[in-house]
């Protein structure tokens, strides 16, 4: 499965013509995303899949704002799998999270 490359197009679109707002959103994203990812891995480690599902649900917003359409669809399926106690798709989700982390660390 190909891992999508995140971009800032959606953030720019939401910020419209305001560069200040765009920077504000990026700053929040840089602060909030690592915390949400850590929380997800913490719950994954303890195999608390219901909490993992809630974490993935929350991360969907970040996936969406980084314009990763396919990854968003994948996250929907993965969230449902986790609710049923199944984490078989976690490896691909790792790749999505890595792509997002790498991207935000460079902006």
């Amino acid at each position, binding site marked *: 499965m190909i891992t999508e490359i995140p971009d800032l197009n*959606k953030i720019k*679109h*939401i910020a*419209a013509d*305001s560069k200040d*707002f765009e920077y*504000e*959103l990026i700053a*929040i*994203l840089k*602060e*909030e995303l690592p915390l949400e990812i850590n929380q997800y891995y913490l719950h994954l480690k303890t195999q608390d899949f*219901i*909490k993992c599902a*809630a974490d993935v*649900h*929350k991360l*969907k*917003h*970040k996936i*969406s*704002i980084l314009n990763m359409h396919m990854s968003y669809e994948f996250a929907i399926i993965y969230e*449902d799998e986790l*609710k*049923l106690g199944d984490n078989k798709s976690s490896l691909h989700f790792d790749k999505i999270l890595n792509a997002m982390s790498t991207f935000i660390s460079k902006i």
Partner: protein
Amino acid sequence: MDCIIIDDEALARAIVSNHCKKANLNLVAEFDNAIAAIKFLNQQPVDLIFLDIHMPDFTGFDLIQTLKNPPRIVLTTSDRNFAIEAFEYECIVDYLVKPVELPRFLKSVEKAKQVKHPVSSSSTKPLTEVNEVKTEKGTDLYVNIDRRLIKINFDSILIIEAKGDYILIKTESKNYTVHSTLKKIEEKLPDSKFLKIHRSFVINFHKIIDIEDNSVLIAKDVIPISRSNRPILMKQLNLL
């Protein structure tokens, strides 16, 4: 219009807050959890709430059910296809998918302005995610999963387990994870079949295979019995 934002995500709050300014709404406060918002709302009523549904511990729906006279509410969610539950509450005028875009936000505000203020809590009776339907052939339970109402026959249910904000309904053929609580589903189940034997478990006691000191075996699951519930369970059994 005075409004507040309730969302545990700072990014989501920042976006809605920015849109509020553009919509000339008077944003009086922002909250990252529902409990703090309830305390505020008890002191200061508002006209409109932008409310995240999925928050840890206390969800958006929990908040709505807590408010005696909820104002107009616009839900925010990360679910693109979210809809079913939202419009079962009269106070909910719209829902917005995150990240919220300005044109859609403005439409939502217009919608909210056109809706009369909901006046009584009785008219905002929540939709439960679990609805009971009595049919001629018996009693079934309909559960809301992925925007579909799925019928589960009472007799097929083995165990219902609390899992945080969800319940896991184990039946003879399939398991279902539903956004609900044990308390809610307990109210929908017939007493003649179901019993809560532990704070996290409701069982169909007709499905018990055997009982040991402090546990019951149902199918392949060993379920703990709390000390206080054991006498109630024993009363239900046809003991020799």
